[in-house]
């Protein structure tokens, strides 16, 4: 199955991509996907960064199991205002 990963801010810059379509195994979690992505884009591993996780525009915990066509965002520290 495939999921769509959107990258923003520091993660977008470090990956050099704003969107990645990724083939993953059934039963993969958000955390599993993050591990795989960091292999594809080693620069995504920002030392000390605290991420939040969103699936289909809602915050989720990293153990959320992904479904086909989910939109996943790894949310770097927000700083609106």
């Amino acid at each position: 199955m495939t999921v769509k990963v959107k990258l923003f801010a520091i993660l977008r810059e470090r990956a050099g991509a704003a969107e990645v379509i990724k083939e993953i195994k059934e039963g993969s979690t958000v955390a599993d996907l993050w591990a795989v992505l960091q292999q594809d884009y080693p620069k995504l591993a920002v030392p000390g960064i605290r991420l939040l996780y969103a699936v289909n525009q809602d915050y989720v915990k990293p153990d959320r199991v992904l479904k086909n066509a989910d939109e996943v965002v790894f949310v770097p520290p927000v700083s609106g205002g």
Partner: protein
Amino acid sequence: MFRVTDKPINLQELVDCVTDPEAGAIATFIGTTRNNNEGRKVIALDYEAYPEMAEKELTRLGEEARRKWQVCRMAIVHRVGPVQITEPSVMIAVSAAHREAAFAACRFAIEEIKKTVPIWKKEVYEGGEIWIGTQSGQPLNRS
């Protein structure tokens, strides 16, 4: 009205949006771009958002404020893209029957925006640029 925009924000538009016959007060907040931060001379800010989710989170934040205080209406607009020194990056307007609720909800909104809404600020300063943020907040609800 809960949205992000790449155009300058118009306060009057927010005030009109929250104007309500039941309201005895409208509180507004304008976040503006400061020319310095932590000893750096700031040239401009550049905001990026995950627009669909940012608007969803702003709406949720408005619902949360309504649960906590007797709010009539609320509007939040956040700018994205480059924002020059002195220019507003965010505006909030809240109407309520009484001023205490309007002030409190307005304060709550700006504090929450800084914690959980997926908007990021890059500071362009003399000699470089840096993404700001420490991720100190917890999402209001997370499944």
